[in-house]
Protein backbone atom coordinates (compact mmCIF):
# COMPACT_ATOMS: atom_id res chain seq x y z
CA UNK A 1 0.00 0.00 0.00
CA UNK A 2 1.44 3.37 -0.88
CA UNK A 3 1.72 6.01 1.78
CA UNK A 4 -1.37 8.11 1.06
CA UNK A 5 -3.75 5.15 1.25
CA UNK A 6 -1.88 3.70 4.20
CA UNK A 7 -2.19 7.04 5.97
CA UNK A 8 -5.93 7.10 5.35
CA UNK A 9 -6.39 3.60 6.66
CA UNK A 10 -4.06 3.77 9.66
CA UNK A 11 -3.79 7.35 10.82
CA UNK A 12 -6.87 9.27 9.72
CA UNK A 13 -9.32 7.28 11.89
CA UNK A 14 -7.51 8.76 14.90
CA UNK A 15 -7.91 12.37 13.87
CA UNK A 16 -10.51 13.07 16.57
CA UNK A 17 -8.26 11.57 19.25
CA UNK A 18 -5.37 13.69 17.95
CA UNK A 19 -7.50 16.81 17.97
CA UNK A 20 -8.81 16.13 21.47
CA UNK A 21 -5.29 15.71 22.83
CA UNK A 22 -4.17 18.91 21.09
CA UNK A 23 -7.17 20.80 22.43
CA UNK A 24 -6.28 19.88 25.99
CA UNK A 25 -2.58 20.52 25.50
CA UNK A 26 -3.11 23.97 23.96
CA UNK A 27 -6.49 24.85 25.54
CA UNK A 28 -7.22 26.67 22.32
CA UNK A 29 -9.17 25.47 19.27
CA UNK A 30 -7.14 27.33 16.64
CA UNK A 31 -3.75 26.27 18.02
CA UNK A 32 -5.02 22.70 18.28
CA UNK A 33 -6.03 22.70 14.64
CA UNK A 34 -2.63 24.00 13.53
CA UNK A 35 -0.81 21.45 15.64
CA UNK A 36 -2.86 18.49 14.39
CA UNK A 37 -2.34 19.55 10.79
CA UNK A 38 1.37 19.94 11.40
CA UNK A 39 1.51 16.57 13.16
CA UNK A 40 -0.37 14.84 10.34
CA UNK A 41 2.07 16.18 7.77
CA UNK A 42 4.91 14.78 9.86
CA UNK A 43 3.06 11.48 10.22
CA UNK A 44 2.63 11.33 6.46
CA UNK A 45 6.33 11.97 5.99
CA UNK A 46 7.51 9.38 8.50
CA UNK A 47 4.84 6.77 7.81
CA UNK A 48 7.28 4.50 6.02
CA UNK A 49 9.28 4.20 9.21
CA UNK A 50 6.20 3.16 11.13
CA UNK A 51 6.01 -0.62 11.30
CA UNK A 52 3.00 -1.20 13.53
CA UNK A 53 -0.09 -2.49 11.77
CA UNK A 54 -2.46 -2.69 14.67
CA UNK A 55 -5.04 0.10 14.99
CA UNK A 56 -4.21 0.94 18.60
CA UNK A 57 -0.52 1.28 18.02
CA UNK A 58 -1.19 3.61 15.07
CA UNK A 59 -3.22 5.73 17.45
CA UNK A 60 -0.44 5.84 20.04
CA UNK A 61 2.03 6.65 17.28
CA UNK A 62 -0.04 9.58 16.00
CA UNK A 63 -0.64 10.86 19.54
CA UNK A 64 3.12 10.75 20.16
CA UNK A 65 3.66 12.98 17.15
CA UNK A 66 0.85 15.33 18.21
CA UNK A 67 2.26 15.56 21.70
CA UNK A 68 5.80 16.30 20.49
CA UNK A 69 4.51 18.78 17.93
CA UNK A 70 2.54 20.58 20.63
CA UNK A 71 5.59 20.80 22.88
CA UNK A 72 7.95 22.16 20.23
CA UNK A 73 5.19 24.43 18.92
CA UNK A 74 4.73 25.84 22.39
CA UNK A 75 8.44 26.58 22.68
CA UNK A 76 8.48 28.27 19.29
CA UNK A 77 5.25 30.28 19.41
CA UNK A 78 4.66 30.79 23.09
CA UNK A 79 8.06 30.73 24.74
CA UNK A 80 6.60 32.46 27.80
CA UNK A 81 3.57 30.20 28.03
CA UNK A 82 5.04 27.75 30.50
CA UNK A 83 6.16 30.49 32.82
CA UNK A 84 2.93 32.43 33.02
CA UNK A 85 0.16 29.97 32.41
CA UNK A 86 -0.48 29.09 36.05
CA UNK A 87 -0.68 32.72 37.12
CA UNK A 88 -3.00 33.40 34.25
CA UNK A 89 -5.25 30.56 35.13
CA UNK A 90 -5.39 31.53 38.77
CA UNK A 91 -6.32 35.08 37.84
CA UNK A 92 -8.97 33.92 35.45
CA UNK A 93 -10.56 32.26 38.48
CA UNK A 94 -11.55 35.70 39.69
CA UNK A 95 -13.85 36.03 36.70
CA UNK A 96 -17.38 34.92 37.45
CA UNK A 97 -17.95 31.52 35.85
CA UNK A 98 -20.97 29.41 35.41
CA UNK A 99 -20.59 27.21 38.49
CA UNK A 100 -21.47 23.95 36.76
CA UNK A 101 -19.58 20.84 37.76
CA UNK A 102 -18.30 20.25 34.26
CA UNK A 103 -16.92 23.76 34.12
CA UNK A 104 -15.07 23.31 37.36
CA UNK A 105 -13.66 19.90 36.56
CA UNK A 106 -12.71 21.04 33.08
CA UNK A 107 -10.99 24.11 34.48
CA UNK A 108 -9.22 22.06 37.14
CA UNK A 109 -7.90 19.88 34.33
CA UNK A 110 -6.77 22.98 32.42
CA UNK A 111 -4.92 24.21 35.49
CA UNK A 112 -2.86 21.04 35.82
CA UNK A 113 0.71 21.27 34.57
CA UNK A 114 0.94 19.88 31.01
CA UNK A 115 2.74 16.69 32.03
CA UNK A 116 -0.14 15.87 34.38
CA UNK A 117 -2.87 17.04 32.03
CA UNK A 118 -1.61 14.85 29.20
CA UNK A 119 -1.65 11.61 31.23
CA UNK A 120 -5.23 12.31 32.34
CA UNK A 121 -6.37 12.96 28.77
CA UNK A 122 -4.55 9.90 27.42
CA UNK A 123 -5.92 7.64 30.13
CA UNK A 124 -9.41 8.94 30.91
CA UNK A 125 -10.47 10.30 27.52
CA UNK A 126 -8.48 8.12 25.12
CA UNK A 127 -8.32 4.92 27.16
CA UNK A 128 -4.63 4.27 26.49
CA UNK A 129 -2.80 1.60 28.49
CA UNK A 130 0.03 2.57 30.85
CA UNK A 131 2.47 1.17 28.32
CA UNK A 132 1.03 3.26 25.51
CA UNK A 133 1.03 6.41 27.66
CA UNK A 134 4.64 5.68 28.54
CA UNK A 135 5.45 5.42 24.82
CA UNK A 136 3.59 8.62 23.95
CA UNK A 137 5.06 10.74 26.72
CA UNK A 138 8.53 9.18 26.77
CA UNK A 139 8.59 8.60 30.53
CA UNK A 140 8.76 5.28 32.43
CA UNK A 141 5.51 3.49 33.36
CA UNK A 142 6.19 4.18 37.04
CA UNK A 143 6.23 7.91 36.31
CA UNK A 144 2.99 7.60 34.33
CA UNK A 145 1.38 5.95 37.34
CA UNK A 146 2.56 8.52 39.86
CA UNK A 147 1.54 11.41 37.61
CA UNK A 148 -1.91 9.87 37.12
CA UNK A 149 -2.30 9.40 40.84
CA UNK A 150 -1.32 13.00 41.67
CA UNK A 151 -3.45 14.42 38.88
CA UNK A 152 -6.49 12.47 40.05
CA UNK A 153 -5.99 13.63 43.62
CA UNK A 154 -5.99 17.25 42.37
CA UNK A 155 -9.11 16.74 40.28
CA UNK A 156 -10.91 15.10 43.19
CA UNK A 157 -10.13 18.15 45.32
CA UNK A 158 -11.70 20.34 42.65
CA UNK A 159 -14.74 18.06 42.59
CA UNK A 160 -15.10 18.25 46.36
CA UNK A 161 -14.83 22.03 46.31
CA UNK A 162 -17.61 22.08 43.75
CA UNK A 163 -19.82 19.91 45.95
CA UNK A 164 -19.23 22.12 48.97
CA UNK A 165 -20.18 25.25 47.09
Amino acid at each position, binding site marked *: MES*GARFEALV*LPHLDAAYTLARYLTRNAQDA*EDIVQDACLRA*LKYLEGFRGEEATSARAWLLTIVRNTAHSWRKRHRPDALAVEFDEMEHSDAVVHDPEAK*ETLGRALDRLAPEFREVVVLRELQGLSYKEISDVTGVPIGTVMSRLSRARARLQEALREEEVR
Partner: protein
Amino acid sequence: MTHASFEAQVDTYLDGELAAGDARALETHLAQCPDCTRFRDGRLELRAAIVAGVPTFQAPPALHERVLAAARGSSSPRAPHRFTVQNVWRPLALAASLAVVALGSWTLALQRAAGEALADDVLASHIRSLMPGHLTDVPSSDQHTVKPWFNGRLDYSPPVYDFAGRGYPLLGGRIDYVGGRAVAALVYGRRQHVINVLLWPAASGPASGPSTRTRQGYHELHWTTPDYTCWLVSDLGLAELQEFVLLLRQADSAAGAR
Protein backbone atom coordinates in the same frame (compact mmCIF):
# COMPACT_ATOMS: atom_id res chain seq x y z
CA MET B 1 1.32 -6.03 52.51
CA THR B 2 0.76 -2.77 54.30
CA HIS B 3 -2.34 -0.63 54.02
CA ALA B 4 -0.43 2.09 52.13
CA SER B 5 0.73 -0.32 49.48
CA PHE B 6 -2.84 -1.55 48.98
CA GLU B 7 -4.10 1.99 48.56
CA ALA B 8 -1.34 2.67 46.03
CA GLN B 9 -2.71 -0.24 43.96
CA VAL B 10 -6.29 1.03 43.73
CA ASP B 11 -5.62 3.21 40.66
CA THR B 12 -3.82 0.39 38.90
CA TYR B 13 -6.69 -1.93 39.78
CA LEU B 14 -9.38 0.43 38.49
CA ASP B 15 -7.34 1.05 35.35
CA GLY B 16 -7.43 -2.72 34.74
CA GLU B 17 -3.64 -2.95 34.90
CA LEU B 18 -3.21 -4.92 38.10
CA ALA B 19 -2.18 -8.57 37.74
CA ALA B 20 -4.99 -11.00 38.53
CA GLY B 21 -3.37 -12.35 41.71
CA ASP B 22 -2.75 -8.87 43.09
CA ALA B 23 -6.26 -7.84 42.13
CA ARG B 24 -7.73 -10.68 44.19
CA ALA B 25 -5.58 -9.74 47.18
CA LEU B 26 -6.69 -6.12 46.84
CA GLU B 27 -10.37 -7.13 46.57
CA THR B 28 -10.01 -9.09 49.80
CA HIS B 29 -8.43 -6.07 51.46
CA LEU B 30 -11.11 -3.70 50.08
CA ALA B 31 -13.81 -5.84 51.60
CA GLN B 32 -12.46 -5.20 55.08
CA CYS B 33 -10.87 -1.75 54.81
CA PRO B 34 -13.24 1.24 54.92
CA ASP B 35 -10.41 3.67 54.13
CA CYS B 36 -9.45 1.90 50.92
CA THR B 37 -13.10 1.52 49.98
CA ARG B 38 -13.62 5.25 50.46
CA PHE B 39 -10.53 5.93 48.39
CA ARG B 40 -11.80 3.69 45.60
CA ASP B 41 -15.27 5.26 45.69
CA GLY B 42 -13.74 8.71 45.40
CA ARG B 43 -11.87 7.61 42.31
CA LEU B 44 -15.02 6.11 40.81
CA GLU B 45 -16.88 9.33 41.49
CA LEU B 46 -14.14 11.24 39.73
CA ARG B 47 -14.29 8.86 36.81
CA ALA B 48 -18.06 9.32 36.49
CA ALA B 49 -17.61 13.11 36.71
CA ILE B 50 -15.00 13.04 33.96
CA VAL B 51 -17.24 10.92 31.76
CA ALA B 52 -20.13 13.30 32.34
CA GLY B 53 -18.28 16.59 32.28
CA VAL B 54 -15.00 16.49 30.36
CA PRO B 55 -15.70 16.29 26.62
CA THR B 56 -13.74 14.73 23.81
CA PHE B 57 -13.65 16.77 20.63
CA GLN B 58 -14.34 16.03 17.01
CA ALA B 59 -11.80 17.34 14.53
CA PRO B 60 -13.32 20.24 12.56
CA PRO B 61 -14.40 19.19 9.04
CA ALA B 62 -12.04 21.74 7.50
CA LEU B 63 -9.08 20.18 9.29
CA HIS B 64 -10.19 16.75 8.16
CA GLU B 65 -10.35 17.95 4.58
CA ARG B 66 -6.93 19.60 4.68
CA VAL B 67 -5.31 16.50 6.11
CA LEU B 68 -7.09 14.32 3.59
CA ALA B 69 -5.97 16.57 0.73
CA ALA B 70 -2.39 16.35 1.97
CA ALA B 71 -2.59 12.55 2.11
CA ARG B 72 -4.07 12.28 -1.36
CA GLY B 73 -1.69 14.83 -2.78
CA SER B 74 1.19 12.61 -1.78
CA SER B 75 -0.06 9.66 -3.77
CA SER B 76 -1.58 8.93 -7.14
CA PRO B 77 -5.34 9.50 -7.36
CA ARG B 78 -7.28 6.49 -6.21
CA ALA B 79 -10.75 5.09 -6.19
CA PRO B 80 -13.32 6.67 -3.84
CA HIS B 81 -12.53 6.14 -0.19
CA ARG B 82 -14.83 4.62 2.33
CA PHE B 83 -13.87 6.18 5.59
CA THR B 84 -15.43 9.63 5.16
CA VAL B 85 -18.80 7.97 5.53
CA GLN B 86 -17.69 6.01 8.58
CA ASN B 87 -16.35 9.15 10.14
CA VAL B 88 -19.74 10.75 10.16
CA TRP B 89 -21.06 7.90 12.27
CA ARG B 90 -18.16 7.53 14.58
CA PRO B 91 -19.20 8.36 18.14
CA LEU B 92 -19.58 12.10 18.01
CA ALA B 93 -18.36 14.59 20.51
CA LEU B 94 -21.02 14.72 23.16
CA ALA B 95 -21.95 18.37 22.93
CA ALA B 96 -22.28 18.38 19.18
CA SER B 97 -24.26 15.19 18.92
CA LEU B 98 -26.75 15.35 21.75
CA ALA B 99 -29.24 17.64 20.08
CA VAL B 100 -29.06 16.02 16.69
CA VAL B 101 -29.21 12.45 17.91
CA ALA B 102 -31.96 13.05 20.45
CA LEU B 103 -34.07 14.88 17.92
CA GLY B 104 -33.46 12.19 15.31
CA SER B 105 -34.37 9.37 17.62
CA TRP B 106 -37.57 11.06 18.75
CA THR B 107 -38.68 11.69 15.19
CA LEU B 108 -37.93 8.15 14.20
CA ALA B 109 -39.72 6.74 17.22
CA LEU B 110 -42.98 8.07 15.90
CA GLN B 111 -42.63 6.07 12.70
CA ARG B 112 -41.40 2.78 14.00
CA ALA B 113 -43.01 -0.46 15.01
CA ALA B 114 -43.11 -1.41 18.69
CA GLY B 115 -39.76 -3.23 18.83
CA GLU B 116 -38.01 -0.43 17.06
CA ALA B 117 -39.71 2.14 19.27
CA LEU B 118 -38.40 0.30 22.31
CA ALA B 119 -34.87 0.34 20.92
CA ASP B 120 -35.28 4.07 20.34
CA ASP B 121 -36.49 4.50 23.92
CA VAL B 122 -33.42 2.70 25.18
CA LEU B 123 -31.13 4.86 23.08
CA ALA B 124 -32.89 8.03 24.19
CA SER B 125 -32.48 6.91 27.79
CA HIS B 126 -28.75 6.46 27.21
CA ILE B 127 -28.37 9.87 25.60
CA ARG B 128 -30.40 11.54 28.35
CA SER B 129 -28.20 9.87 30.93
CA LEU B 130 -25.10 11.43 29.38
CA MET B 131 -26.37 14.94 29.96
CA PRO B 132 -24.74 16.50 33.01
CA GLY B 133 -26.33 15.35 36.24
CA HIS B 134 -28.53 12.69 34.66
CA LEU B 135 -26.29 9.64 34.81
CA THR B 136 -27.25 8.24 38.20
CA ASP B 137 -29.85 8.76 40.91
CA VAL B 138 -27.72 6.67 43.23
CA PRO B 139 -24.01 7.10 42.42
CA SER B 140 -22.20 4.22 44.04
CA SER B 141 -19.74 1.52 43.14
CA ASP B 142 -21.22 -0.70 45.84
CA GLN B 143 -23.76 -3.18 44.55
CA HIS B 144 -25.11 -3.51 48.10
CA THR B 145 -25.97 0.19 48.03
CA VAL B 146 -27.37 0.28 44.52
CA LYS B 147 -29.58 -2.83 44.69
CA PRO B 148 -31.50 -1.90 47.87
CA TRP B 149 -31.97 1.64 46.54
CA PHE B 150 -34.53 0.25 44.08
CA ASN B 151 -36.66 -1.11 46.95
CA GLY B 152 -39.94 0.79 47.08
CA ARG B 153 -39.14 2.50 43.79
CA LEU B 154 -39.78 -0.49 41.54
CA ASP B 155 -41.81 -3.65 42.00
CA TYR B 156 -38.75 -5.80 41.33
CA SER B 157 -35.20 -5.97 42.62
CA PRO B 158 -32.78 -5.99 39.68
CA PRO B 159 -29.54 -7.97 39.80
CA VAL B 160 -26.59 -5.60 40.33
CA TYR B 161 -22.94 -6.53 39.94
CA ASP B 162 -19.59 -4.82 40.15
CA PHE B 163 -16.96 -5.91 37.66
CA ALA B 164 -14.33 -3.35 38.63
CA GLY B 165 -11.80 -6.15 38.75
CA ARG B 166 -12.51 -6.87 35.10
CA GLY B 167 -12.40 -3.22 34.11
CA TYR B 168 -16.16 -2.60 34.16
CA PRO B 169 -16.75 -0.77 37.44
CA LEU B 170 -20.27 -0.11 38.66
CA LEU B 171 -20.97 3.65 38.60
CA GLY B 172 -24.49 3.63 40.01
CA GLY B 173 -28.16 3.24 39.16
CA ARG B 174 -31.24 5.24 38.29
CA ILE B 175 -34.89 4.87 37.39
CA ASP B 176 -35.84 5.52 33.82
CA TYR B 177 -39.02 5.36 31.80
CA VAL B 178 -38.88 3.05 28.82
CA GLY B 179 -41.56 1.22 26.84
CA GLY B 180 -44.30 2.78 28.94
CA ARG B 181 -42.99 1.65 32.31
CA ALA B 182 -40.49 2.61 35.01
CA VAL B 183 -37.36 0.47 34.67
CA ALA B 184 -34.06 -0.02 36.45
CA ALA B 185 -31.02 1.46 34.70
CA LEU B 186 -27.64 0.27 35.92
CA VAL B 187 -24.61 2.28 34.92
CA TYR B 188 -21.25 0.68 34.34
CA GLY B 189 -18.03 2.26 33.12
CA ARG B 190 -15.27 1.15 30.80
CA ARG B 191 -12.40 3.62 30.52
CA GLN B 192 -14.10 6.84 29.38
CA HIS B 193 -17.19 5.04 28.12
CA VAL B 194 -20.54 4.74 29.84
CA ILE B 195 -22.55 1.53 29.58
CA ASN B 196 -26.23 1.67 30.44
CA VAL B 197 -27.98 -1.61 31.23
CA LEU B 198 -31.78 -1.37 31.35
CA LEU B 199 -33.80 -4.32 32.52
CA TRP B 200 -37.28 -5.23 33.61
CA PRO B 201 -39.18 -8.45 34.36
CA ALA B 202 -40.18 -10.40 31.29
CA ALA B 203 -42.86 -12.96 30.70
CA SER B 204 -40.96 -16.14 31.46
CA GLY B 205 -39.48 -17.57 28.29
CA PRO B 206 -36.30 -19.19 27.04
CA ALA B 207 -33.08 -17.18 27.41
CA SER B 208 -32.03 -15.63 24.13
CA GLY B 209 -29.65 -13.24 22.46
CA PRO B 210 -27.87 -11.02 22.52
CA SER B 211 -29.06 -9.43 19.32
CA THR B 212 -27.15 -6.38 18.20
CA ARG B 213 -27.98 -3.19 16.41
CA THR B 214 -26.02 -0.05 15.81
CA ARG B 215 -27.49 3.35 15.32
CA GLN B 216 -26.11 6.85 15.45
CA GLY B 217 -22.77 5.50 16.57
CA TYR B 218 -24.17 3.62 19.58
CA HIS B 219 -24.43 -0.11 19.95
CA GLU B 220 -27.55 -1.63 21.42
CA LEU B 221 -27.54 -5.22 22.65
CA HIS B 222 -30.73 -6.97 23.61
CA TRP B 223 -31.10 -10.30 25.36
CA THR B 224 -33.40 -12.08 27.74
CA THR B 225 -32.77 -14.16 30.82
CA PRO B 226 -35.39 -16.44 32.39
CA ASP B 227 -36.47 -13.52 34.57
CA TYR B 228 -35.63 -10.33 32.74
CA THR B 229 -35.56 -8.64 29.41
CA CYS B 230 -32.31 -6.72 29.16
CA TRP B 231 -31.00 -3.91 26.99
CA LEU B 232 -27.51 -2.50 26.92
CA VAL B 233 -26.42 0.63 25.12
CA SER B 234 -23.00 2.25 24.82
CA ASP B 235 -20.51 3.76 22.38
CA LEU B 236 -17.91 1.23 23.50
CA GLY B 237 -16.61 -1.22 20.88
CA LEU B 238 -18.85 -4.17 20.13
CA ALA B 239 -16.29 -6.82 21.13
CA GLU B 240 -15.94 -5.40 24.63
CA LEU B 241 -19.70 -5.01 24.98
CA GLN B 242 -20.18 -8.65 24.05
CA GLU B 243 -17.56 -9.60 26.63
CA PHE B 244 -19.45 -7.52 29.18
CA VAL B 245 -22.78 -9.19 28.36
CA LEU B 246 -21.03 -12.52 28.84
CA LEU B 247 -19.87 -11.38 32.29
CA LEU B 248 -23.41 -10.31 33.19
CA ARG B 249 -24.93 -13.58 32.05
CA GLN B 250 -22.30 -15.64 33.88
CA ALA B 251 -22.98 -13.66 37.05
CA ASP B 252 -26.73 -14.13 36.55
CA SER B 253 -26.50 -17.86 36.16
CA ALA B 254 -24.08 -18.10 39.13
CA ALA B 255 -26.59 -16.14 41.24
CA GLY B 256 -29.47 -18.29 39.97
CA ALA B 257 -27.68 -21.50 40.89
CA ARG B 258 -26.92 -20.32 44.42
